[in-house]
């Protein structure tokens, strides 16, 4: 589904160069639920942004469904984002002036669906996250957990195969976080590939696979010794 080989990302400002990712290798298979952990500033968001085609990378290879994405123009990247990828953000990122229905509608309009299909998809997506009855409400009238559910509905409405979540529970209390996590597990169970960045070791533990990023490089914890794994967790907890 998603494959990066020797990928690197350098941020250049006029003063400094930051190597946010280097020699980054990862292969996420169809249907996986991958939790990405790592200290702050290690490159998690950078990875997710590149995976989601929100940013270009500097060097290396990135393939979606076996197709290299390097060199795609902005329109093609927008279309790929729209059709294959769903995003969930830490800050929910609801559009405050639109009610829930219209918020979920945003990506569907860019997809070019006709009104009846959009309506059906929006209602179905909101039902899935248990908020169909609040369709006419505005984001400000909802709790954080509810907003994140709407964001998930928005990400799912277009039936993406890949869901990218950057600390989706970072702004939620633990009860709400658990609710969101359960929803994501349910979605994954129905076949959607999920890559989730999280600071929460407990949530990471629940994912099928953990990927740890340190200093812009992957240390796939499934393939290292349990001792190192514990040490890495300790380091992460210290940072968090």
């Amino acid at each position, binding site marked *: 589904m998603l494959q990066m080989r020797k990928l690197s990302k350098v941020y250049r400002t006029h003063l400094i160069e930051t190597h946010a990712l280097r020699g980054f290798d990862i292969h996420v298979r169809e249907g996986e639920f991958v939790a990405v952990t790592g200290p702050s500033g290690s490159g998690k968001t950078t990875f997710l942004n590149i995976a989601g085609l*929100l940013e270009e990378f500097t060097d290396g290879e990135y393939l979606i469904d076996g197709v290299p994405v390097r060199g795609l123009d*902005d329109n093609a990247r*927008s279309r790929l984002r*729209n*059709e294959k990828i769903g995003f969930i953000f830490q800050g929910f*990122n609801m559009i*405050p002036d639109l009610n829930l229905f219209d918020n979920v509608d945003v990506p569907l309009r860019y997809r070019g669906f006709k009104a009846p299909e959009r309506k059906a998809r929006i209602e179905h997506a909101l039902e899935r996250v248990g908020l169909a009855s609040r369709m006419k409400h505005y984001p400000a009238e909802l709790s954080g957990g509810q907003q994140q559910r709407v964001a998930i509905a928005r990400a799912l409405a277009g039936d993406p195969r890949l869901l990218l979540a950057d600390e989706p529970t970072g702004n939620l209390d633990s009860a709400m976080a658990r609710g969101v996590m359960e929803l994501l597990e349910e979605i994954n169970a129905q076949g959607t590939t999920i890559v989730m960045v999280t600071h929460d070791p407990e949530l990471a533990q629940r994912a099928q696979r953990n990927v740890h990023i340190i200093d812009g490089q992957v240390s796939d914890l499934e393939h290292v010794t349990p001792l190192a794994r514990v040490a890495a967790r300790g380091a992460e907890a210290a940072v968090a």
Partner: protein
Amino acid sequence: MEIKPILSTLMRNKTGVFVIAAQVALTLAIVANVFYIVRDRLAEANRPSGVDEDNTFMIGVGAYRPVVDPMADIARDLAGLRALPGVTHATLANQMPLAQSGNNSGVSVDRSQQQISTSVAFYEAADSLVDALGLKLVAGRDLAPSDVIEIQVGENSPEGPFPVVVTQALIDKVFPGETQPIGKLLYLGVGPNADELRIVGVVEALTTPWGRASWGLANRGDVSMIVPFRRATDSPLYIVRTEPGARAAAMKAAEALLVKPGNGRVLGANRSMTELRERRYRSDRFMVGLMGTMTGLLLVVTASGILGMASLWVNQRRKQIGVRRALGATRFDIVRYYLTENFIVTGIGIVVGIGLAFALNAMVASELGLERLPLAHLGIGVVLLWVIGQIAAYAPARRASLIAPATATRSV
């Protein structure tokens, strides 16, 4: 198109919408009416006078010592003027088109009338004014030397009947629909003793000394008549026509001929018809320029308002624009969103502005002698504002489209 979500968003940003829409409405109302007034004024300033304007001039002289035999002086002046190189016609007259001074008289068509039918510019000319001004005779005949009535200094105007040449506009006014005006009678003033005038000829046009009055539709400045009076005066006015290209030299020569050191005369005015028109409409042109400038400034202010509001909205929504991009919006989708939003806000202003334009028109129309605002002018204003709105909104819309998709995850 994203009309519905844009409308929802605008409903939640009413203040901004109101500010811009109100500005657009006001601008439209003013622009449409100014366009109309300006066009009307320019049309007026360019309306044909009926005169061969390129080749005519007037020259008037005054006397600073008593004149013994004015009629003899006038005859000598005219003979001299006619002998100047390039001069084709010259006549004594009492007034000049567009010179902004002269006589008006009232005429009636029936002796039982209590009030005059119209007021009319009263041109007295001893020789053919049709020739001297290059007027176009459309019916009947010109006044002939045998029609001329001499009036000595101190004498009253003669009693009628006497022949007159009138403008088509006069016929249209007092005998609407009349196709056989020759021989019709007019009366100078009202009542049983009013002098009788017999129409012998009709000219296509001869503007009055004032052109169209600026105070009313009723007076279009084209109701004139010519009477065959040779009125003795010590300060005669001559109207002279030349061959093409000969006027400037003829004006100099005429001045040298009429005003010589020691001949007891001073120059009154020596002006070409071209200059007279320019002077007559100078203030109108100034007003047109002023209104045009003000309107231009108003449009700039409105465009700035639109630009400012669009920029503000874009800046406020940086994050959500990034989110839209992350969710699959292309750059074009973002540009289109902001142009559509602007189109709608401007459109709200335009709808209100159309009503306002007619209200403003109703207020000024009667003052300025205008008719109801033509829809075409409103249409021009509507299109102009929409275009200006789109142009003003384009830069912020484009800036919005360049906001990085990563803004969705990076910024707070």
